[in-house]
């Protein structure tokens, strides 16, 4: 069987790739398209390091088949900053030192961005539960939660 030819929109740009059925969207982003910002930490949906937006819904790219992306709109960490302008979440992650090794950071930023689009004024508890699918082993989450709350406040203009 020939590979599937998948046509998508990634970070606003048209993108095409070839894949076999068993390849995940994460495999396709990383290996076929060179978008290595999404990380593989577990390949079972338990760590969130591969978080991306698929048609406006936050998903783990490791739990989506590449072929399912046909006609879909995908947003990855690579599309969060606009050129040189960092997203407020990115800025606050840096200011609050919300990363140590940084491998979970892309997933956290994509997931947190989805949170703030869904709920611009989350409580700390809401933020913690929303981000429970993103594992961080370095920070103890404290500074990540602070960064998210501060970015939310800035985005609300508070």
């Amino acid at each position: 069987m020939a590979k599937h030819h998948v046509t998508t929109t990634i970070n606003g740009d048209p993108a095409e790739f070839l894949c076999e059925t068993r390849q995940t969207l994460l495999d396709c982003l990383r290996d076929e398209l060179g978008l290595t910002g999404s990380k593989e930490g577990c390949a079972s949906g338990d760590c969130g390091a591969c978080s991306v937006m698929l048609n406006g819904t936050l998903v783990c790219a490791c739990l989506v088949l590449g072929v399912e992306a046909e006609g879909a709109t995908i947003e990855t960490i690579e599309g969060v900053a606009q050129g040189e302008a960092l997203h407020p979440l990115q800025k606050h992650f840096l200011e609050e030192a919300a990363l140590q090794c940084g491998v979970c950071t892309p997933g956290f930023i994509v997931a947190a961005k989805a949170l703030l689009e869904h709920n611009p004024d989350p409580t700390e508890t809401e933020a913690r539960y929303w981000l429970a699918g993103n594992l961080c082993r370095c920070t103890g989450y404290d500074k990540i939660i602070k960064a998210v709350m501060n970015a939310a406040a800035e985005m609300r203009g508070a």
Partner: protein
Amino acid sequence: MGNEEEIGKIIDYSGRDFRYIGTRTIRPDGVDKVTGRANFGADFTVNGMIHGRVVRSPHAHAKIKKINVDKALKLKGVKAVVTGADFPEIDINDKAVGEVVVSYYDMAHNVIARDRVYYDGHAVAAVAATTPEIAEQAARLIEVEYDVLKPVMTAAQAMKKNAPVLHKHIVTAGVEPKPEKPSNVASRTEFKLGDVAAAFADADVIVEKEFSTQTVHQGYIEPHACCASIGADGNTNIWCSSQGQFMVRAYTAKICGMETSKVKVIPAEIGGGFGGKTVIYLEPLAVMLAKKSGRPVKMVMTRDEVLRATGPTSGGTARARIGAKKDGTIVAGELELVYEAGAYPGSPVALGCMTGFAPYDIKNVSCVGWDVVVNRPKAAAYRAPGAPVAAFGVESTLDVLAEELGMCPLELRLKNAAVEGTQAPYGVKFNRIGYKETLEAAKAHPHWSAPLGPNQGRGIASGFWFNIGGTSSAEVMVNEDGTVIVATGNPDIGGSRASMALMAAEVLGIDVERIKPLVADTESVPFSMLTGGSRVTFATGKAVIEAAQDAVNDLKRRAAKIWDVDVDQVEWENGQAVCIESTQHKPLTIAQIAAKADKTGGAISGRANINATGAGPGFGTHICDVEVDPDTGYVTVLRYTAIQDVGKAIHPSYVEGQLQGGAVQGIGWALNEEYVYSDDGRLLNTGFLDYRMPVASDLPMIDTVLVEVPNPGHPYGVRGVGETPIVPPLAAVANAVSHAIGKRVTDLPLSPPRLLAVIDGK
């Protein structure tokens, strides 16, 4: 650990005003990491690259009878297969001594099994193919015939008289007379101080308890990954994430039988290590596959492989006995530790023995450790290796002692706290340390006196870690426009580049934004020991300071040349050369001097190759509040405060981050993390679903207090900070839970089923 020669060389920097040290700058590698541009181990690709997969043993203990690779080699797209037979044999006595002793023989056999497999997940073969899918398929086609043996899964099983013996060449070291029979007990270690028996006889109160913990994993989010390429001339490049590019070079060269100069290791960003990346697993396999196939080979572990075959740290038992006078003066301490080393000797049990009683001034101490091999993966270093389990035993028993004495557990610790001049059980006399200060900070913290509700409890516990120095190198290169590059040989796990830039900025007197710190490959900077032992900010920081001073000296020489004055007429102030002899020479900035470098002798740089001594021990005290659901045994951590003597916080945010992250790893260890094996030795929880590390919603904010008692052995007072924070939490949580339920808990993890059994008295 401990540097007697440096003791007494007190550097007084109190009252010194820092310009950059202690500020919260944006980390230099930050933008790449928040935008997804940073390249970690698995993000690297090279033209012509193929993909490797490892075949792993499904058995915990077995003889390898035969490996048939024919079917795999016939599969289209398969380029090479390697087994243990492809690797050179290594002398059984070939060892390297670092933070823990490394046996190259064991490491080589751990990387790929020869005649026997010793744990579920042990590598037996590896295959490389044109796609990951074909490699995976080929791995399934490699037929391994095993003669399955009975596994020994726990130290208790392994120490039984008739237990199957894992290694015929191991006889118990450290016991007299030397035994003749092989044993699973690799060694006995003892540290002694004073007359313990007499001191216990003299004690008014004696408490004794036994504790147990399970195997836990470092849990870094980035699986091990590497890419190796080798030319016909033997020149080899390895791109990988690790805790030490020089470590990877040395170990890979050794295991593959290559000269060091043939191997170049280019460090990737590292996605967490916590000690687990201070050893190698994939690199020799990738090199051999690359050699056989003539193609660059990339290998990336799955999470299942990470949990089955890398890390973890030892499960073990701790028996602690403490004798005290009625007034709370501790007169005697005894600690017996039994740690599971995994498949090969080398658990961190000796470090446990050295650290358990280290926070206390006790004149009579005996600490005995047993290192026991079992059919689990070979233990690797994990943040303060050995110390958390020892501290769990000692700090829990201290809590029991406080109850017996009717004394506040914090006051008991204050009364017996080690101070400057205290003789530590492991041999050194402490220099200026800040343990007492952490206890005083705990006492003053509002957390300590906050009210508690029903089913709630508060625990306090302390911890110690040596922190080490060692060989580090640094190069400071002044660019033509006066910006500066600081190159070191240590992977940056948690923000060390930010600290390096800050220390260089302090010496050079220029803005930190004008300094670019980098982690260089093995051929661009001289040798450095790996990132571990909480040594980088201290030791490599010291090298950076010296290299920056060397660069300043060079800059001063150049300024002297430009002005045509003696170099002793030039001083360095606020990032400028100043001529003290005459006012006619206007100060010269770095940029001005750099612009004329070609006229004053060529490129400007500084360098330092040091073996840093004078590392300062770190002490921490943690306070934990929990609530226990008495009907389900579910524990909620309500509040947590981590207090630590950090010497001098170069970048306070990242120091706080170390305290917070270490505390949470410790909370995970205490509450839900554990390896679960079937009776026949297969690991049952090989993913993050059932290897339960804390998630964001499990935790409160982790409050921190940075106590700064400067380390006299560092020009800016730096102490290592990374490891100490994981030492107190096991006991802090367990003490809190014990108070909440009114019963002493002694076995970790305190998962709901285990805790409910304690509550219900079963």
